[in-house]
């Protein structure tokens, strides 16, 4: 388990909030730290890919667990 990992609960939030909250959380983190984001918005899957591609952050993993989407992002 990554000791520096933070979790952002974006469940119940719809576009564009998951991305905006992710950006805010990453802003407060140091390079190399990882952020776990939980979301229920199905649009967030593509959004997270796009966000990471555009901002240069690494989308370590993107999956589904117990009906929610779980993303792991490493800050560039």
């Amino acid at each position, binding site marked *: 388990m990554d000791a520096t990992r933070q979790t952002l609960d974006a469940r*119940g*939030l*719809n*576009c*564009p*909030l998951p*991305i*905006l909250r*992710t*950006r*805010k959380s990453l802003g407060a983190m140091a390079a190399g730290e990882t952020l776990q984001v939980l979301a229920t*918005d199905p649009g967030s899957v593509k959004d997270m890919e*796009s*966000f990471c591609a*555009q*901002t240069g952050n690494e989308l370590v993993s993107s999956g589904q667990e117990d009906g929610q989407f779980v993303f792991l992002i490493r800050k560039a």
Partner: protein
Amino acid sequence: MSANPHIPVSDPAALDDWFDRRFEEKMAAREADHVPSMTLIATKGTLDMAYPPFILASTAAALGWDVSVFFTFYGLALLKKELDLKVTPLGNPAMPLKLPSGPAWLRDHELNIPTALMAAVPGFEGLATTLMKKTLGNKGVAAIEELRELCVEADVKLVACQMTVDLFGWEKEDFIPGVSDWVGAASFLPTALKADVNLFV
């Protein structure tokens, strides 16, 4: 710095090749360094039309873009300190009418109310606004105030049309402190000229 400093000036064919390579390299470097930019002109002041400018601007800013939004005419109302945005089904025949509260079977059903009836009932606009706000809340969609605040935090330039302020007899104090500038079209257009994406709402 070119790895090969030997520029073949005396050999036209080789010079062409060298130039093509260097040109590709330069263009690729320029594209890699380019920060995408967007300008958006917001001209509407209703609750439903407030969403596109703020969602697009905040999302573009989240992607690292440079964003400027010009608020003019009714759009200027979106920058007021006290927001009192309404939505009307009149003139919005595409608006799906589903009730946000009540039993599940009712909430799922799209009501088919003729526009003429909506226009005739006083207070319908207020009712539609209340129901729309409840629907937005139910679905976890941010309120306009929150999206606007996120835009300010993300350094989106919220530009107010000075002409509109004068036209409607408003004062600068009526607006949020986050307004970055008070200008006219001639000042905003050069920004739009350089932007990659220009939208009109």
